[in-house]
């Protein structure tokens, strides 16, 4: 592109477009996050927060068993949610990418976008009523002479909530990842005698690796940070880290300790994201 060839020390036109977001994000994005990091070193005296630099909150939180219970629970639930979502979504995404017409695929993706614009809270509440001891599913099973089964306040309930949040996104991202691969390579593999399942495992999945890992990463981040599913459908005993943040902030007035939890969550997510993106963009070795 040809640009006007004047070199100015300060280009008003360029800066008019470049600066607003920098100023805004520094005040309302970087500022809050840095302040939260600083706040994790503050102390609370007589129910009031005092700016300080002490490690009390870190020692208090990290030195307690229940924090690590919560941590491992949240990590485990988010991992489980990611595995379940990826496994459930894959056959659907495979079908949408390879087994339907363009028109059907477009409609399917449009339909999968709808959930993002219905309140996640209202959908969770609907599941609460559906899964309850005397809810729709158990009433239906009752006709068949089964149940009632306890589904609320279990890990199963939490997972249903996580899937409500993440499954549409994971299907969409997987469908994009699979649609982008060169189907001639799959055909070539089959012509050379590769069985269908082996072709999926050894050709399709490696080719779509980057997109699939990114789908999994999004699923993990969303599940890891969600408090609605584990609270309303999972019974929150023991609490996950997001619930711990809410409890510590809302009832305990212990903002600095909540900040410790949040910082630990951020560090964990950075580590997971770094590992995932490294794996996603690593070139495969020639074998």
């Amino acid at each position, binding site marked *: *592109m040809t*640009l006007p060839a004047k070199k100015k020390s300060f280009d008003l036109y*360029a800066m*008019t*477009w*470049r600066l*607003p*977001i920098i100023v*805004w*994000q520094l005040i*309302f994005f970087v500022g*809050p*996050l840095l*302040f*939260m990091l600083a706040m994790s070193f503050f102390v609370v005296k007589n129910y009031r927060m005092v700016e300080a630099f002490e490690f009390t909150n870190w020692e208090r939180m990290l030195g307690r068993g229940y924090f690590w219970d919560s941590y491992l629970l949240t990590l485990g639930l988010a991992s489980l949610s990611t595995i379940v979502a990826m496994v*459930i979504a894959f*056959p*659907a995404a495979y*079908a*949408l990418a390879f*087994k339907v017409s363009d028109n059907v695929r477009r409609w399917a993706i*449009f339909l999968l976008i*709808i959930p993002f*614009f*219905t*309140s*996640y*809270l*209202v*959908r*969770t*509440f*609907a*599941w*609460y*009523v*559906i899964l*309850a001891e005397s*809810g*729709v599913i158990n*009433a*239906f099973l009752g006709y068949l002479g089964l149940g009632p089964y306890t589904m609320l306040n279990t890990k199963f309930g939490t997972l249903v909530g996580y*899937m409500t949040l993440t*499954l*549409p996104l994971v299907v969409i991202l997987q469908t994009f990842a699979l649609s982008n691969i060169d189907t001639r390579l799959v055909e070539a593999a089959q012509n050379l005698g590769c069985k*269908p399942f082996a072709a999926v495992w050894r050709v399709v999945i490696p080719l779509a690796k980057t997109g699939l890992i990114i789908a999994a990463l999004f699923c993990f*981040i969303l599940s890891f*940070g*969600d*408090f609605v599913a584990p609270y*309303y459908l999972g019974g929150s005993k023991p609490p996950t880290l997001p619930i711990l*943040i809410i409890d510590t*902030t809302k009832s305990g007035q212990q*903002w600095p300790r*909540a*900040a410790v939890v*949040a910082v630990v*969550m*951020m560090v964990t997510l950075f580590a997971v*994201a770094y590992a995932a993106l490294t794996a996603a963009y690593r070139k495969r070795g020639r074998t």
Partner: protein
Amino acid sequence: MTLERGLTWFLRAWVGVVFVFVFTPIIFSLIFSFNSQRFPTIPLGEFSTQWYETILADRDVWQAAWTSIIVAVSTSILATFLGFCTAYSDYRYNFRFKGAYLALILLPPTIPLIIMALAMLAWFSRIGASGQVWSIIAAHTVLTAPFAMAIIRLRLSQMDDNLEAAAWNLGASEWATMRHVVLPFCKPAIVSAACLCAAVSFDEFAIAWFVSGLNKTVPVVILEIVTGNIDPQVNAIGTFVFLTSMTLVVAAQLLFIARAARGMKQGAET
């Protein structure tokens, strides 16, 4: 071949199962909203509009709806403006630290909302702005600007690089070119981005819950009702929220996203 055909049918059925799971809560919440039972189950109770009557008579709900509209409209204007500025800077200029610059706008949606909520709560109370409506707006703008940026950037990438240069050669200043060439070209994307930002803001509850104080938005009211007890009026509110958001999304879709997809396809074919 029969194995393959069986497999194809299995895969299609699997898509059906996924769709049933995704739409079960949406459809049931609609059904429950017209159902007389306080705790809905099957067999269903009678048809009733009582939950709609309850919420329409509720002053708190009206107040929250008003707050939500103010927040959503202000957010969408601010976020679309910031998104446009960033998209244009990215399209037109190369400069140092551009990666960091883009990260600055694109990162917020990848950070869990509950963490953003705590950070915002602490920050706003530190700068003496806790419980204000504009605090929610500021936070929602950070959250939604990336979406606006993405949509407008997509539109800019469809613009002929020589279009701006042609206008300059004909003697237009950069500002005039922006006003008479770039902005008209981006208009559908700008409107579409504004709709999408409004829809996202209208649905967001974690940050709004932490930051709002007494100025509750609709999702915060839903959250409080759900936390209290079983109350089907949540479903009735949900229907209204759904209708509002879907109107915005369909508007965005009609205005731009469908057109952009078609444009990209044509571009790929030629």
